[in-house]
Every structure is written in C-alpha cells, then in structure tokens.
C-alpha cells in the first residue's frame, strides 16, 4: 500500500524533477538514470523515515547527488562544474530534509520546448514528450504506437543524440519566436491526442492513456504560459472530444456516428471545463484554428439531442476554419456541415467539386460522406455505390463495420 503511494508520488513529481535534472546535467540519459536511482532510494528510505515534507525537493537533491556520483565514476578525469561542487559541499545526510529553491516550473516549460523542437522529427517529439514529461516507459510508448519496442528505443536514442550533438538549446524561445514555436508544441500535443483518439482497437487502455497524457500536457502549457488563447483552445478541444469517448464505439467495436451516440454518457464535467476554457480563450480576441475546432466541438456537446445541433453556426465556423487553415479535409467537413445546415444537395455539390479536384483521392471519408447524404436524399442506388467506394478504401475495422452496417440498412 505504502509502495503504491510512493509510486504515485514519484510519478507525479517526475516531470518537474527530471526537467530540472536535464537542465542541470545537460544530459537526458544521465538525468533519467540518476532519477531512477533516487526513486529506488526513496522506496527504501521513505517507509523507514516517513514521507519528506517536500518529496520533489528530496528527489531533486538525491538525484543530483546520484548524477554527480555517476559523472565521477564515468569520467574521473573531467573536473566537475563549480555549481556541482557547491552542491556537494552543502549536502548533508541523506535522510535530512533538503531545502531547494523551486525553479522547477520553468524547467518543465524548457523541456517541453526542447523536446518539441522542429529540428526533431514529429514522431521523435511525441516519443520524447511521452517519455520525459509524461513518464511513460519505452515499452508503453511502443505499445501505444503499435511498433516494436526496439523501434521506439531507437527513436528516443536518436532524438536525444540529435539534441546533444546538433546543440538544440534547453530553453524557452525568446518572445519573438514564441508564437511560432508554441504552434509546434501545440501541434505535437494534438498529435499525441489524435493517436489516442483515432484508434478504437488494439491496446485500447493505453490508447485512452495517450489522450489523458495529451490533456495533461495541454494543461501544463495553459498553466505555464497563461494568456495563450490557442493553448486554451487546444485543451478545450481535447477535453470536449474526450468527453464523448464512452459513446464513440458500440460494444462490438463498431464506430457510432455522432447523431446516434448516447449523449447521457458524455462526460459533463469535461464538457463544462472545456467550454469554460474556450470562453476564456475566445475572450482574448485572438482567434485561431484550435479555438474554432473547439467551438465546433462545444456546439455538438451543447446539443442535448442531435436535432438541436446548431448546424448553421457549425457551418459558419468551418467556413472560418477553412479561411485560416485551408485544406481538403477541412473542406470536406465544411461541406458536410453545409449539408446539415442548408440541405444535402448543397453539400453534395461541394463534395462533387472536391472529388473532381482529386485532392482527396484514396480518402475513404469522401465517398462515405457522399453516401450518407445520398442515403438521406433517398437516392439509394447511388448511396450504395458510394458506400462500396468507401469500403474499398477504409482500413480501420471499427469504421469498416460501421460502413457495412449502413450499407446493410439500405437493402
């Protein structure tokens, strides 16, 4: 019982302590190893001497000491830096309560900007963020990405090596770069979330975990960089999507479309939190794509029944989104919203233009959306053909089962 309590405590303190250690040692691996040793020591010392008043400070001090030990053992020829020598001098007995100035907040932010540096490949950014800031093990990250553990390990090694060898600084970017770099950080967090959200099969619990970790990272940004409207927008967006998790798939794993979802199981607290965050962000008067997407999600969440959905407003928001972040997938969503707001014909005409442009060739959701509108219009033959086209392209089993179900209902 006590071991579990300590485990949880350590897990909670890990990002802060580790971030500080990485800054202090300038070495990801050394920091992680020293932290592991400190945790082992905590598991031994805490049950005997009781929990320290400030576990984070305890772990930081002991980790630093272990880091110094490791450095001395590995490179006895290299003299220690003065800051480290100072620390050695001031350190007392291991079981006494160390007092350390809390400089940890900035370190977590520094770590976030470092691991999300655009000079690292997106997959490496995701893996590093999960490893360092969320404390997932390499095995857990591998399972979440459905890749062999060796691949993930290799990715982490390469990314850490690039940080060290290319000289990626451990710092929060200067004011003039912040907006551009924050965009990168937010998109990495959203990538983590989508990896967790888009799949409904495989190791589903670890997938749900990815969503939770992305939300945790989103909270971290909102907490450490207050006043950033798009950071609030992204957190709101993730909370509002995640609130619908329980209703997204049927017990047999078939995808359930929004209009058929059981809205009574949606997470009200998450919706409330997301809505409040979104309002706060929007009030700052700096609109952006995450806020717009969150606003769309909020309109869906707000409708107690599908027919109460404010489609005109959603269509207008997709129009705005299309102007800021143009792209064929946004356009497809805009067309679908227009169909719901102003009738299927208007949406179908738009989708036909999209189809002719060829930009979504091979994307199953285009024929699937067309099939849905044709079905609503009672144009059964054409709907059937469109479902067949979608089924030829779809890869995800949950979506395939849904499309097959719809096609079956047309008989």
């Amino acid at each position, binding site marked *: 019982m006590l071991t579990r309590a300590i485990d949880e405590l350590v897990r909670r303190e890990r990002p802060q302590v580790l971030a500080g250690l990485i800054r202090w040692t300038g070495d990801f691996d050394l920091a992680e190893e020293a932290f592991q040793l400190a945790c082992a020591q905590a598991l031994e010392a805490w049950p005997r001497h009781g929990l320290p008043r400030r576990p984070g400070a305890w772990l930081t001090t002991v980790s630093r000491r272990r880091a110094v030990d490791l450095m001395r053992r590995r490179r006895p020829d290299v003299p220690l830096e003065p800051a480290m020598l100072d620390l050695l001098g001031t350190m007392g007995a291991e079981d006494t309560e160390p007092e350390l100035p809390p400089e940890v907040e900035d370190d977590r932010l520094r770590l976030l900007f470092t691991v999300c540096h655009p*000079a690292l490949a997106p997959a490496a950014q995701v893996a590093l963020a999960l490893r360092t800031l969320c404390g997932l093990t390499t095995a857990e990250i591998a399972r979440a990405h459905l890749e062999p553990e060796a691949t993930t390990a290799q990715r982490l090694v390469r990314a850490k090596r690039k940080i060290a060898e290319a*000289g990626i*600084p451990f710092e929060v970017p200067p004011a003039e770069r912040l907006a551009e770099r924050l965009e990168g950080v937010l998109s990495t967090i959203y990538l983590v979330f989508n990896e967790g959200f888009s799949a409904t099969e495989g190791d589903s619990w670890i997938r749900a975990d990815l969503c939770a970790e992305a939300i945790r990272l989103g909270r971290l940004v909102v907490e450490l960089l207050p006043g950033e409207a798009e950071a609030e927008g992204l957190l709101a967006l993730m909370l509002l999507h995640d609130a619908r998790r329980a209703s997204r798939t049927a017990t047999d794993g078939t995808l359930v479309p929004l209009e058929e979802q059981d809205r009574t199981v949606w997470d009200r607290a998450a919706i409330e939190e997301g809505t409040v965050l979104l309002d706060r962000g929007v009030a700052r008067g700096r609109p952006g794509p995450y806020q717009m997407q969150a606003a769309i999600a909020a309109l869906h969440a707000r409708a107690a029944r599908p027919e109460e959905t404010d489609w005109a407003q959603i269509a207008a928001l997709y129009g705005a989104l299309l102007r800021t972040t143009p792209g064929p997938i946004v356009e497809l969503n805009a067309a679908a919203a227009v169909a719901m707001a102003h009738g299927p014909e208007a949406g179908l005409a738009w989708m036909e233009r999209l189809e002719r442009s060829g930009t979504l060739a091979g994307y199953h959701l285009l024929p699937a959306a067309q099939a849905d509108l044709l079905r609503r219009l009672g144009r059964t033959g054409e709907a059937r053909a469109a479902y067949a086209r979608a089924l030829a392209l779809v890869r995800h089993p949950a979506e395939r089962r849904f499309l097959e179900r719809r096609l079956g209902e047309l008989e």
Partner: protein
Amino acid sequence: MEYIVLIYGSEKSWSSMSKTDVEQMYAEYKKYSEELAKAGVMRGGSELKPTSTASTVRVRGGKRQVTDGPFAETKEQLAGFYLIEVPNLEAALDWAAKCPSSRDGSIEVRPLASGGPA
C-alpha cells in the same frame, strides 16, 4: 558550437536570372556576410561554381575513379556555404533563416563534429 550553413538552390533558375536580379542577390549576400562578420560569428565561407564544374572521385579496390558532375544529381544544388560559430542550434537556425537564399532555396544547417579543427 560551429555549424556549416549549406546553401542549396536551383542552378537552373539562377542561370536564368536577369542581370539586375543577379546584382540584387549579390548585394544581399554582401550585406548578409557583413552582418555575420559584424556579429563575430563568421568563420568562413564561399560561393561555389556550378555543379557543371564538379568532379567526383572514388577509390575502389585501390583504383581511382573520377567521374564528371556532383556526388548526386538533385533538383537543388549546393551553391555555397558559410561556417559560423554560435552558442546553439537555435542561433544557427536564426542565421540560416536570414540567408538570402532561404526564401527560394533550402539551407541545411549541420554542426561540425567535436567543435571542428582546433
């Protein structure tokens, strides 16, 4: 840390530039080089002659093979380089972004191994 800033661009579009555009580009590069020098980060660099002047050498089985042309035929070619010394990658990328060719070509930034020659 020392970084090499490799400037890649399309030789084809450069060779078809008007005289005034060429003069304009050289003026921009002159200014850029001066800025690097003024900031105290410049360690060297040069424009290169076109890849049509390149030769590639390989020694295989003790035998020297010389071929005409660059190591690899690519859409964009190496046109020049700078060697700079700055605190970290972020600073190197800032300088790379200021390079005149960053607007129409690509700039590759790479650290020198172990700090470069002493």
